[in-house]
């Protein structure tokens, strides 16, 4: 119970702080909103295949997410508050609080960006609920992975660049499966591609959750 209270305190503090500075949120949302607008001008009257649409959507979401997600830990190191967290909070509470914060940041960014993407690019959405499920599973994987990688990269000198450099290769399986599942939601039939991709996505999320649970203490302590 104490761990959950402490995790909630970290989550609440991060949101309060984010709401006042809007450093991560504004960068992510602006990128995620501006990209479909720019794309809509260049792709006007062009019919995109479901595969290209899915790929484009996840490219926008991934890069927008990477801009904001790295902030959760980097901000603590830059402001000199990381050692206060280490001294007062157990590592598992920090991990849970930061993962929740990253997940909620992704949700807000997608609520702003995904409908705009679908409308501006005139995408035919055949499976809205399955798309939401695929996005949610992708978000869970992104939030968990970026929590571990953010903690690892935060103590390095070039934190931002290092976070992106290690995040992209690690997130590649997630990106491939999420793109495949999302593309199926734009096709006339989901048969054959959606559920196998979702199974791998669930496996990736579970494996990353286990990794974070075991390695976060070491990454944060180092």
């Amino acid at each position: 119970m104490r761990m959950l209270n402490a995790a909630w305190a970290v989550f609440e503090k991060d949101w309060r702080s984010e709401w006042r500075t809007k450093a991560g949120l504004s960068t992510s949302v602006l990128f995620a909103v501006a990209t479909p607008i720019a794309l809509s001008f260049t792709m006007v009257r062009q019919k995109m295949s479901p595969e290209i649409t899915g790929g484009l959507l996840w490219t926008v979401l991934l890069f927008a997410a990477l801009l904001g997600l790295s902030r959760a830990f980097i901000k603590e190191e830059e402001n000199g508050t990381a050692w206060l967290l280490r001294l007062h909070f157990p590592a598992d509470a920090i991990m849970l609080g930061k993962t929740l914060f990253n997940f909620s940041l992704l949700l807000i960014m997608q609520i702003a960006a995904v409908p705009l993407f679908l409308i501006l690019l005139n995408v035919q959405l055949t499976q809205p609920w399955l798309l939401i499920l695929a996005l949610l599973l992708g978000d869970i994987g992104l939030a968990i992975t970026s929590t571990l990688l953010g903690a690892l990269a935060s103590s390095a000198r070039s934190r931002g660049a290092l976070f992106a450099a290690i995040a992209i290769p690690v997130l590649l399986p997630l990106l491939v499966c999420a793109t495949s599942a999302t593309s199926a939601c734009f096709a006339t039939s989901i048969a054959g591609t959606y559920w196998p991709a979702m199974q791998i996505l669930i496996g990736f999320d579970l494996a990353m959750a286990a990794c974070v649970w075991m390695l976060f203490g070491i990454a944060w302590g180092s």
Partner: protein
Amino acid sequence: MLTITNLTKRYGYRQVFRDVNCQIESGQVVAVTGRNGAGKSTLLRIVAGLLRPSKGEVLLDEIAIGRIGMAAPDAPLYRELTVQENLQFFAKAHNNVGAWHATPTVAGDSGTARHAPTCQQEYIETALERFHLMPRRDDLAGDLSSGWRARLQLAVATFAQPKVLLLDEPAANLDEAGHALLWELLDEQRQRGIALVATNDAREAERCDRALLL
């Protein structure tokens, strides 16, 4: 009890200090002194478990997370949170139990005893009052002057009644009332455990029970 054995710290080829040995009994306030760059802050960070030594070890009796309190001039707390929100955040870290929860009564400014706080808000009010932070409670920590910030750091550092209190140049930005409060806290710490105070001020060092020269 705190035991430091053959403690050595190097940053690359630069040696900060070498083979520091010290044994500190409970009830002692120890000044850590030395020239600039001697490694006073580094030593405190190693004792807090925030830095790894290059060699040697620090042994602490039964210390868990939250039982070490630390205040340092380069720790600005959360600049985007108000004074009250900073205190609330650290209160939640310790399960909403106030700093003086274990003590049946605490002395007020007037010297009269009153009941120890039992809930978070009561603790916050008590801390704001005790550290004279009441007029600045709704100000962002980033907008505070260094003196006010030092008081807030002391409030956070002593929150959980730490067994080991580590203070890095605590008096540097404090006025006379702040000094008095600092020594009141250090006297309380003598009843509770150990305090290490990194200082360059000879008068501060003289008031401590022992000095460790780096």
